[in-house]
């Protein structure tokens, strides 16, 4: 797996399971948490087996990001547009959550394929809600109309008390991510990962990808942002999105990839750590083998032929050993 999927696997599984035994009344009550501190709560009661209550809690926004009624700007409209007949928004939401949706599973479209696509859409509720302002900005970009009377700089929450920034213009949208990591090793790995990431963008095959930049200090676009929200220990990543990246179906993917960028980097940092461990383990094993060969083992050496008491390395193997 290279990219994170936009739908929550467990939510999708729960929805599909529920739909398959719709007439069977069961009591469900699941809580779980995803990366970026998004919490979910699913409830089904025995009385109304075709109704499902889905509550979502979003990460706490930092001071520069403003929520309207506990949700990012335009989230309500986005939910309505995406799930119109099936989903009803409950106001006020459940205690401790930002949003509660009431799903009426009996109103789902009958067509099997379309229904599956719809369930996936519901399972990617975090993309719809958290990515709502981003989607609006990118939509304006694809139709090349300047967003009416918005700020020159938008900030969007993506992790608790952390946000990334958006500079919408008529012909491009600039997205800036301040990258923060907790662990000192992670910081080093992430920094070099991001530098490689920018480097890889320059290879011939990726000419059409959005241009991206990495810098250790905040880029010029963020000169109006208060200093305290600009402390990033792994530098700043800037993407410039042009209209061709948000045409038609590409829009959804771009929104998700941008809003999960931090999680993506952190996933790959963990993967590289794991990969390094694998290499280290292999190395230790080969060193231990070398030590074992050097042990004077009297019992055995008497039994084996003298020519086999040490292993002669061929030239190729010796070179491979010295390289690794």
């Amino acid at each position, binding site marked *: 797996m290279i990219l994170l999927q936009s739908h*929550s*696997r467990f939510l999708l599984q729960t929805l599909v399971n529920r739909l398959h035994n719709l007439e069977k009344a069961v009591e469900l009550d699941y809580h*779980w948490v995803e990366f970026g501190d998004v919490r979910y709560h699913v409830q089904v009661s025995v009385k109304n087996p075709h109704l499902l209550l889905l509550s979502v809690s979003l990460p706490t926004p930092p001071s520069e990001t403003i929520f309207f009624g506990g949700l990012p700007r335009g989230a309500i409209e986005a939910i309505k547009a995406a799930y119109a007949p099936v989903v009803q928004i409950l106001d006020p939401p459940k205690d401790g959550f930002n949003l509660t949706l009431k799903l009426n599973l009996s109103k789902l479209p009958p067509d099997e394929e379309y229904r599956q696509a719809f369930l996936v859409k519901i399972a990617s509720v975090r993309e719809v809600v958290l990515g709502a302002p981003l989607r609006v900005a990118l939509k304006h970009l694809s139709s090349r109309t300047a967003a009416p009377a918005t700020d020159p700089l938008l900030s969007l929450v993506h992790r608790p008390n952390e946000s990334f920034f958006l500079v919408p213009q008529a012909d491009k949208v600039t997205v800036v991510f301040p990258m923060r990591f*907790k662990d000192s090793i992670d910081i080093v790995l992430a920094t070099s990962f991001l530098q490689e990431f920018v480097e890889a963008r320059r290879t011939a095959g990726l000419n059409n990808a959005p241009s991206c930049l990495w810098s250790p200090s905040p880029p010029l676009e963020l000169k109006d942002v208060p200093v305290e929200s600009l402390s990033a220990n792994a530098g700043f990543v800037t993407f410039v999105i042009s209209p061709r990246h948000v045409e038609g179906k590409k829009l959804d993917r771009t929104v998700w990839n941008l809003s999960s960028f931090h999680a993506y980097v952190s996933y790959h940092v*963990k993967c590289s750590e*794991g990969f390094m*461990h694998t290499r280290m383990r292999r190395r230790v094993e080969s060193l231990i083998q070398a030590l074992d060969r050097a042990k004077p083992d009297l019992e055995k050496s008497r039994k084996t032929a003298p020519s086999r008491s040490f292993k002669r390395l061929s030239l190729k193997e010796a070179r491979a050993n010295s390289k690794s």
Partner: protein
Amino acid sequence: MDATSRPAVVIDNGTGYTKMGFAGNVEPCFILPTVVAVNESFLNQNRIASKANWLAQHSAGVMADLDFYIGDEALARSRSSSTYNLSYPIKHGQVDNWDAMERYWQQCMFNYLRCDPEDHYFLLTESPLTAPESREYTGEIMFETFNVPGLYIAVNSVLALAAGYTTSKCEMTGVVVDVGDGATHVVPVADGYVIGSSIKSIPISGKDVTLFIQQLMRERGENIPPEDSFEVARKVKEMYCYTCSDIVKEFNKHDKEPAKYIKQWRGIKPKTGVPYSCDVGYERFLGPEVFFSPEIYSSDYSTPLPAVIDKCIQSAPIDTRRALYKNIVLSGGSTMFKDFHRRLQRDLKKIVDARVSASDARLGGELKAQPVEVNVVSHPIQRFAVWFGGSVLASTPEFFAACHTKTEYEEYGASICRTNPVFKGMY
């Protein structure tokens, strides 16, 4: 936000299936086969031509170290293409391949649970016979690779006892009969502490039942494609097997009314796509019978499970024995056969009663021993009882204080995971 305010992640890695989810729920989120499918074709040529290899990978759209799948996806991949090799990270209840295990955990966290490991405390399980070194290794991977803030490695038999804890009574003394896919242990626990010297294990487990069923079906000449026969045997075991009270009577029943007892299995040949069907007959009760009369399966092991349990309790401290007989808890997928607990209780009761009456006879009827209460407990969540126990344990506030934390790890190293307090006085 502090990690202690979020629910802990509970992962119970078994030989056959892994159960994972968040603490506080009643069911695990996912139950997956513990298997990893790795594409080795890019990994091995790494050293020879790294540049050319990179280009080849790039055009194939993969990164060698990320090109693997776990669980059901892994099984599907290995069936449909030959580039993926299956590897089972856990063998006989012990982690065998740490590389595969690390990858498995990575996918559990990022692909299935989709949680950030830095945000959650973790509860993992191990079998009571795990070596301290392997616990250290687990701690190293969890703290170094995944940066977890806290880790608790629990003993699965204690968790299985804890699973019964909430449903009825606060009983932390009992014998846990854990029959998994790869290992069978009988573990006596007194007041939450494992009596290490009395742990018994037998070399027959869920996998042997599957192999036995496979063998029976093959010998009868059922029409099953050979590459699928193990999977079919596993499905037959999970769907149709039951425990009988008397093997001879059961044979008679089957012979009298074959229509009622013989089931049909239908499948599709994976290579040609031709549908086939076969009969499922005596193996329905002969499979689980392996635990009660092992001589029908292997010639070198012949002690039945009830006798092993009895021996285990007899070797425990004398003041705990009555309590142990009273609370025998089943856990693991292979105890799910219908009436398994009844048969176990009956056979065990027989052994105990015989001993009591023998001692009565020896005393010449002057003293009458109080009858021993034998009770085998079974509950509906047996399949993931260990996970459920973990979920209960990890949702108590004391859990976070009992964990090994990241700061402790950085201060003292992996040796903090070496000992487990439930084995007090063992090491």
